[in-house]
């Protein structure tokens, strides 16, 4: 069973629909105890970084997530949920994140291109493909909607996309994973990624 962290940010309906579609049981919860004891955790998020961090802290979810992360529970941050994994973000000021991925979140430096980076873009995995993308091929398309992205995080990057230069598309640090794109909105390819994530167990990564 996968727990989707509900901290009042973003639309959890599509995410739970997509997990149901691949046969995964889902529990949407804001209860720190439930989150800490989860088999797998997805941290979603749409909106502003500082609001999201504030809500996570206020609800005691940060400690629960931290303990689960230390225990080796697979955790997947999606979109803003991925950005929260970083040390800090420069979205409307400077804000501290969870700090599990060394690096920062900064505006996409897409000179002359439209912001947000919205639409389907291709993934490249570099030399070694992370197990999360085992079922994917170089160049597969996924759906992005974002104006900020992870930077100075080279050693954690497991997928990049191209938008006026390379843009961080996914990161991993052991059992902590993050996708900048929305797998739940990326058609069959996205479902494949979620299915792979849901095959991971505590201590696998």
């Amino acid at each position, binding site marked *: 069973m996968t727990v989707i962290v509900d901290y009042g940010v973003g639309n959890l309906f599509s995410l739970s629909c997509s997990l*149901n579609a691949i046969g995964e049981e889902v529990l949407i919860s804001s209860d720190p105890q439930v989150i800490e004891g989860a088999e797998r955790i997805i941290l979603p998020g749409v909106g502003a970084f500082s609001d999201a961090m504030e809500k996570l802290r206020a609800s005691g979810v940060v400690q629960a997530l931290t303990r689960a992360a230390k225990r080796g529970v697979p955790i997947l941050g999606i979109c803003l949920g991925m950005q929260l994994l970083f040390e800090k973000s420069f979205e409307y000021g400077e804000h501290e994140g969870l700090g599990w991925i060394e690096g920062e979140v900064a505006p996409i430096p897409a000179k002359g291109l439209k912001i*947000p980076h919205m639409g389907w873009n291709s993934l490249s995995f570099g030399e070694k493909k992370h197990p999360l993308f085992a079922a994917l091929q170089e160049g597969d*398309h996924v759906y992005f909607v974002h104006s900020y992205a992870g930077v100075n995080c080279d050693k954690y990057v497991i997928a990049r996309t191209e938008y006026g230069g390379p843009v961080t598309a996914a990161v991993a640090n052991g059992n902590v994973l993050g996708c900048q794109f929305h797998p739940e909105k990326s058609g069959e390819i996205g479902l494949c990624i979620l299915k792979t994530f849901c095959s991971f167990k505590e201590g696998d990564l």
Partner: protein
Amino acid sequence: MITKRIIPCLDVRNGQVVKGTNFVGLKEIASPVELAKAYSKSGADELVFYDITASSDGRDLFTDVLTQTAKNVFIPLTVGGGIRTLKDFDRVLKAGADKVSVNSGAIADPSLIAKAAKVYGDQCVVLSVDVKRVNGQYRVFAKGGREDTGLDALDWIKRGVESGAGEIVLNSIDTDGVKKGFDLEMLAAVCEITSVPVIASGGAGCIEDFITLFKRLPKVDAGLAASIFHYGEVSIAELKQEMLKNAIPARIVKE
């Protein structure tokens, strides 16, 4: 590279898909959920659902259709039609929409765009504009293209983007349903003044119309159409292959 999006639009009335010519003469076609599934399989990059019912029964049916679609189709869903308040945003987002398109509702209350963008983010607010040439001016029409608002379309779009609209759907009433191609002149004028993604709507009759659109106007991000997809006149899979042949970035779905 980011791809050009192909977006089928489903006008839904009483739980059924309809499509008219120049906004009149509606004809019922098929189950929206089945159609949405088929489009997703053939490579549609996004779907737009317009609620064109007036009654509250019809509205409930629409919300059900949306939820059933969200449970079965995993690409972005935009919803429009009858969006007048933040409550309407809330209703369709909870039912499975990812983006919400405002048109007449924003004309009646322009502050709706800013209010919605603040709560749900710019990326969630799509400004849909029905435009027709009147005395050499691009004029905004409301109420499904029936009412001339007197607003200048370029001014209105600029205002909308400043207020927080994250995307523009430009529907040319002059070319809608005519199937002679997109309104390139009008689209070029809009692309000139905006920094957010622009979706071309109205006038596509064949694959070549999309190729011309993306080749002539590289700033256009997506092409939207309805009846040519519904009646099978244009297959999305074939359209995507043709885009690739013409060096237009496109996402291909493997069977």
